[in-house]
């Protein structure tokens, strides 16, 4: 029964298809002309889009978005990184740390020969 029905259905569909295809052939000249005009204009629209001087190719646009997103992430990470407070912030601070102006430091350097001699004679040691 089902096979019979599907065969009948197939015949009906084939008949419908033939009818549809035949109806495509019977369009009047005015309709065909308007269809042709619409087609030509549509092709021009596609051409204009394809030739546009400022048209950005899709891959460039996608790449641009990806780069911008990556830049935002990197910038965010960079800004959010906790900064370590460095003890030295400028040239004056370096001088303070090195303490080059300190009188004691200069004395140490001036007495360096004495300390060297003292170490050589063994008087400076506790033993």
């Amino acid at each position, binding site marked *: 029964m089902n096979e019979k029905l599907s065969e009948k259905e197939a015949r009906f569909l084939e008949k419908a298809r033939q009818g549809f295809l*035949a109806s495509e052939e019977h369009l009047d000249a005015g309709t065909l002309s308007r*269809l042709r005009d*619409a087609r030509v*204009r549509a092709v021009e629209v596609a*051409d204009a*889009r*394809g030739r546009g001087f400022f048209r950005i190719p899709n891959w460039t646009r996608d790449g641009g978005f990806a780069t911008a997103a990556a830049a935002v992430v990197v910038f965010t990470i960079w800004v959010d990184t906790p900064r370590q407070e460095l003890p030295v912030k400028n040239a004056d601070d370096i001088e303070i740390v090195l303490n080059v102006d300190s009188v004691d430091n200069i004395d140490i350097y001036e007495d360096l020969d004495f300390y060297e001699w003292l170490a050589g004679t063994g008087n400076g040691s506790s033993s």
Partner: protein
Amino acid sequence: MLPCGCLSPRGRGDKSLDQSAALNRFLAQVERRAFGMARMASGSPDDALDIVQDTMFNFARLYANRPEGEWNVLFYKILHSRITDWYRRTAVRRRFHDWFGKPRDDEADEEDPMARVADSTSPDPAEGVMRQEFTGALQAALRKLPLRQQQAFVLRAWEGFDTAQTALAMGCSEGSVKTHYSRAVHALQIKLEEFQS
């Protein structure tokens, strides 16, 4: 040959020309069928032309750069979307006219003018007349079906889409397509019983 593999201006021009020619060929191939589907759904040649024109423009604007293999389904997707829009607009207009008792514009357009055109594709005149009568009756019966059933039937029987392609074009699930199509075939077979000999 450019080291980066980019197209030279000449190459780009050739590619553009090829694409235009391919698009022109494709639209020429589908325009009559699209018009037939739109006219069947709308019952008005003028509205059908507007629908097809709008479909071609949108297709060229949105999908001309897509691979040619996808064009057919995408084109009919736009076409059926436009037909659905037309249906919605017309339904609102009809409701408005019904409320205010105005006569509808399309009341005189019930008969399809194409049904009166002689069928020249058949060598046998009697067969041609039979086919012509069947086609006229089929189109009239189709027009009385719900839009989704109409769309499922024409896409499958006329365009030859399978269930998946029809679902993509109609923007619904394959299960819905099967239901709409089955109901359409059943209803049409009953209405066109006299032609099934």
